[in-house]
């Protein structure tokens, strides 16, 4: 490996670029896949309307009577009332990728989402049925604010103790503050002056359990979720029902831009990283033209030189590849920590790392073989002359 310092560095730069761009691409893929998996795991129902407090379900008020009606629809296995609110309604984060949400869950009912029956907790615990004024926060939320289990959080003037931090999911829950539904309802009333006025006037005969923005609905084993969702829409008035497969399609359609972006990023990474690796390896072989001439003069055959170059190029490419991957991971971690304030921009998955190494190794080998074939066509004397 002596004398290969610049070659290894050149390859490391190429692979670092490839890995970093791939890491961003992986991050977006995970976000889209996570959202898709979530919406396909439950039927989301919201009260019909345009209430801004409805968050993901984008509906209005879903009263307790509607929830009871949904539970009676054939094929429904469970209905969990929920309240979803923007954490800070004064900002313009609504329905953006960086939106922070308060999610109130009625824990007297098991979470019906088939793919997320329980959100994974990294530290502390999840909410219990009898909890009040406690919160479980997402990983990105916790890191962006530097809070952990035991810390205090003030929401609408009330103090909450953080009892758990979720594992990083790379999807929406990373920015959630999950609280008992009673606390979420209190926050909703505190946030919404119109709702507060309405309740104070006594004009609407509402109880606390009528204050739901939506509900997660599960289906019985063997039932077609789309068919159950359509049945709910037919039988329960004044609700918005998301058909899981349609919502999945809508979600994918809305992420077409991101899909195109990540395809472009991946292609760019392959071109930049690939060209860098191939060019560096080929240049390293051509630089040693004189050495090849001397070796052939001393009796080296084409096969011996080919094996030698292949071994060297693999060693150099893998060294550079590992160096590039480590560089990308360190830089990506630094950017995630200091620049993006807890938002994870890069995901260096095992498949990405393995793919980058294999890609670099293969490309290096092909480039080395191409260069070697060009070199051995020269006579030893010519190689020595040109390389001098």
């Amino acid at each position, binding site marked *: 490996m*002596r*004398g290969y310092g610049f070659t290894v560095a050149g390859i490391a730069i190429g692979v670092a670029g490839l890995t970093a761009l791939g890491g961003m691409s992986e991050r977006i893929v995970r976000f889209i896949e996570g959202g898709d998996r979530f919406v396909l795991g439950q039927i989301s129902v919201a009260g019909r309307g345009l209430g801004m407090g409805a968050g993901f379900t984008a509906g209005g008020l879903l009263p307790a009577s509607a929830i009871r009606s949904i539970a009676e629809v054939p094929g429904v296995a469970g209905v969990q009332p929920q309240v979803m609110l923007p954490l800070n309604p004064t900002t313009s984060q609504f329905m953006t990728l960086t939106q922070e949400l308060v999610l109130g869950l009625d824990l007297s009912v098991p979470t019906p989402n088939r793919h997320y029956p329980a959100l994974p907790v990294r530290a502390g615990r999840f909410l219990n049925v009898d909890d009040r004024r406690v919160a479980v926060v997402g990983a990105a939320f916790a890191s962006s604010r530097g809070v952990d289990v035991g810390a205090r959080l003030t929401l609408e003037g009330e103090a909450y103790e953080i009892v758990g931090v979720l594992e990083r999911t790379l999807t929406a829950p990373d920015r959630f503050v999950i609280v008992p539904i009673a606390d979420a309802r209190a926050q909703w009333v505190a946030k919404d002056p119109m709702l507060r006025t309405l309740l104070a006037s006594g004009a609407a005969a509402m109880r606390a359990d009528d204050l739901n923005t939506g509900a997660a609905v599960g289906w019985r084993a063997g039932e077609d979720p789309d068919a159950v969702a359509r049945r709910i829409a037919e039988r329960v008035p004044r609700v918005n029902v998301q058909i899981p497969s349609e919502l999945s399609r809508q979600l994918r359609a809305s992420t077409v831009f991101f899909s195109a972006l990540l395809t472009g990023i991946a292609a760019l990474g392959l071109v930049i990283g690939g060209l860098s690796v191939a060019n560096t390896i080929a240049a390293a072989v051509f630089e040693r033209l*004189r*050495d090849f001439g*001397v*070796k*052939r*003069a*001393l*009796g*080296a*055959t*084409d*096969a*011996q030189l080919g094996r030698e170059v292949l071994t060297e190029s693999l060693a150099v490419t893998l060294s550079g590849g590992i160096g590039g991957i480590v560089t990308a991971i360190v830089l990506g971690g630094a950017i995630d920590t200091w620049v993006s304030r807890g938002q994870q921009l890069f995901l260096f998955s095992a498949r990405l790392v393995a793919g980058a190494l294999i890609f670099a190794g293969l490309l290096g080998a092909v480039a080395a073989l191409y260069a070697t074939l060009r070199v*051995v066509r020269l*006579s*030893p*004397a*010519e190689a*020595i*002359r040109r390389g*001098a």
Partner: protein
Amino acid sequence: MLRARGLVKTYRAPAGPRIRVLDGVDVDVRRGDLVVIAGASGSGKSTLLNVLGLLEDTDAGEVWFDGERVSALGRSARSRARGRFVGFVFQSFLLLPSLTALDNVVLAARYVDRGGADPRRRGSGWPSAAPCSTTRRCSWPTSRPVTSTTPTLASSSGRCGGGRLAGVPSSSSRTARRPSHRQRRVSGSRMVGSKDTY
């Protein structure tokens, strides 16, 4: 041992007709001969040695090593023949800077398997009379200055290859030196290209 007949070699000139450097050269060298090829700069000494050493193809003519017509062999077979029959002492040494002094010495043995002891062991056991007498200096990369050792190392790289025909293809116009003690121990024929006679 070495026979060449009707060697012709031409080079493309920057302008005008091709330059005919070798024009039907015949050579016979027997075992134990020391042959010196002398001539003016550009007369074709190095070209002849390159052609006889299979470093360069000819336009016409044939070369035999020990009765084997090596000029007709394919590229790889010619490389093997070169490693088996020929040792080179390049005037400009052509040491590989990425290798240590010892690895330069045993480089040819890596490509030409002649059996016997491990080439590195043979190389490191090289007599103490050699300038590369300490392990430390043998492990230095040749890109580091070891000026007193380089000429001898250059001649030994041909020796370790085991070639029985030692040649000094000269691409510069330096005057050839008298063969060193180590060169004289080579048992085969020797050919030296030089502008001056001994």
